[in-house]
């Protein structure tokens, strides 16, 4: 006598279609914005690359210039903001995203080029600068997270300290060459300070004790001269902390 109301299969399918359309649009929109972000990062990298070329050219012309005329900070605010943005993209777009990996590789190359150039300028002009090369990995490395925090706090304390972070496992020959040159072990984190390699977690105090010359760059942190590339930074970027 009693009968169930028949299922309205048509409606089930229509709603499925609407929901799928919304989801596909959402995925497309998200992908669209992510691509925009990747484009923005590419544009920043391109600017930095140009800056670097400009500095290299300046350096080549050094014989004809005095040291005070040359830019002393190629690690410009653009490169700083790039550090944060690449780290953010790894978390939000995906650590295995092809674009993000590619951006990270170019970023690492820019860092190496900046490091080499800065080293040459420092030697040529007799500046007191300290460079830290920091090697980390993304997976299963709590100490890398801690080392990241430590280096960030060191950067805050010594704004002239240059920290270059490298993903140990990034498949790029230049990083592999550095690992080989400095004999960086796979016991991470590892830091290379002025050519010497230290493996395992190093606290702020340990780094300061090992490098008393850090004090000198702290003292030397004056009001920046107005140069073509200003050293004034509105933000101090975090060092990669996984």
């Amino acid at each position, binding site marked *: 006598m009693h009968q169930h*109301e028949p299922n309205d299969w048509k409606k089930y399918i229509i709603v499925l279609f609407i929901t799928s359309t919304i989801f596909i649009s959402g995925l497309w929109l998200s992908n669209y914005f992510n691509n925009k972000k990747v484009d923005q990062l590419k544009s920043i990298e391109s600017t930095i690359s140009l800056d670097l070329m400009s500095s290299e050219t300046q350096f080549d012309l050094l014989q004809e210039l005095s040291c005070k005329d040359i830019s002393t900070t190629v690690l410009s605010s653009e490169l700083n903001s790039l550090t944060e943005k690449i780290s953010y993209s790894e978390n939000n777009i995906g650590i295995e995203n092809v674009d993000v990996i590619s951006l990270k590789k170019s970023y690492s190359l820019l860092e190496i080029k900046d490091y080499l150039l800065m080293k040459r300028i420092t030697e040529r002009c007799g500046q007191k600068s300290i460079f830290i090369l920091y090697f980390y990995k993304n997976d299963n490395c709590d100490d890398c997270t801690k080392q990241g925090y430590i280096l960030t706090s060191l950067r805050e304390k010594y704004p002239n300290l240059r920290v270059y972070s490298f993903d140990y496992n990034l498949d790029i020959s230049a990083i592999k060459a550095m690992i080989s040159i400095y004999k960086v072990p796979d016991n991470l984190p590892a830091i290379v300070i002025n050519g010497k390699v230290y493996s395992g977690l190093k606290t702020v105090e340990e780094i300061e004790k090992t490098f008393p010359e850090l004090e000198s760059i702290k003292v030397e942190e004056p009001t920046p001269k107005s140069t073509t590339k200003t050293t004034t930074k509105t933000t101090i970027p975090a060092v990669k902390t996984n």
Partner: protein
Amino acid sequence: MESVYTVVFYVFCFISVYVQLFFLVTFLEKRRHIVHNPENLELSSYPTVTIAVPCYNEGATIDKTVKSLLSIDYPKDKIKIFLIDDGSTDNTWSAIQEFKDNPSIVLLQKENGGKYTALNLAIENTTSEFFGCLDSDSLVHPQALKRILKYFERDPKTMAVAPSIIVYNPKNILQHTQKIEYDMAIYTKKMLGFMGGIHVAPGPFSIFRKKVFDDLGSYHKAHNTEDQEIALRMQEHGYKIDHCPDAYVYTSTPDSVIKLYRQRLRWIYGFIKNLIDYRRLLFKKEYGTIAIFTLPSGLISLFGVTFLFINILGNIIKFFYNKIIQIQTVGFSHVFNFHYQFDWFFVSTKSALLFSIILYILIIIAVMIGKKMVEGKYSFSLSIFYFVIIYSIIAPFWVLRAMYNAVISKESNWTFERRITNNQ
């Protein structure tokens, strides 16, 4: 692990959006069928009706409930009110004596056995064509009965009609939050009514044809959610349950988190156990919407709530863990050393966030339609945000506990939460 999590999240999100859209499409399709009865509604005939009020230690509040029943606009000789004292240990029995001379009222007393036993006693003692109950802390709108009976008059196949339950006199934030939830439930229940998929005939003032009990038997002991069991039994046998949006019943709701927790623990526990008892219905297309839509979506929502909660909790733990590591490593001063500058780049464009926003918009639309059905106009209230935030935080606790209790079969006590209604 990350990708498994993402897939699970998308699946839950997809199903939740699907369910809300299903309601919305049903609303757009059927909105002209939502009848608002006039104040002076008349029925073509006035059948006999029995309303049972089971009372357990309700001496202080029963008076108001009975008076609301006596003020119902219905011929007095056609309505019987059964006041059943379910073995109260307070003054309930003496309190209801004041009504003993009223010809519409029948007083019954029995040993305590739970609400369903009180209702069954009333069913045994009635010969009315229609039967309903009212919890002893609920009040009923004078026109509610006529409006409900009009549904039976219009469609002889309708075997039960559920009312719209409205939070009575909400005072604190928690009660305002529940008001939002109840308003939304009015909308979803009406849509389920259109689809033939109502899974609970709420305790307060659901009206049944007496034939339902004659055919299918009286109330069964069913994990303290007998109002759900009877609805599932009816659905199994193809007995139509509808919903009357303008039959208002005002009910008192828990005013503290702990009371709300106990009430919901019982509801969710009952839902899970009844679902297990009626698992034979699941996904069988011959049982209609209840089997294909209502029960599966209810079940999935339990897992969805649990999953989201674990995810949010995981993120919170991760955040604090990282902060602790940071403090341990470099001290306090660096942790709170913010250098924040707004940059559009850091605005999340994750699709998961987008889908969550769509889902919340659909929920807000559902609440607004519910409010329109109750108050007659679309209105937006800030309580919607309290609702989303408070329920996101506390609902997982009763869901998880109910799931745990269901596994170990630990029932909550009916008397434990007296003065909290049995409505859903």
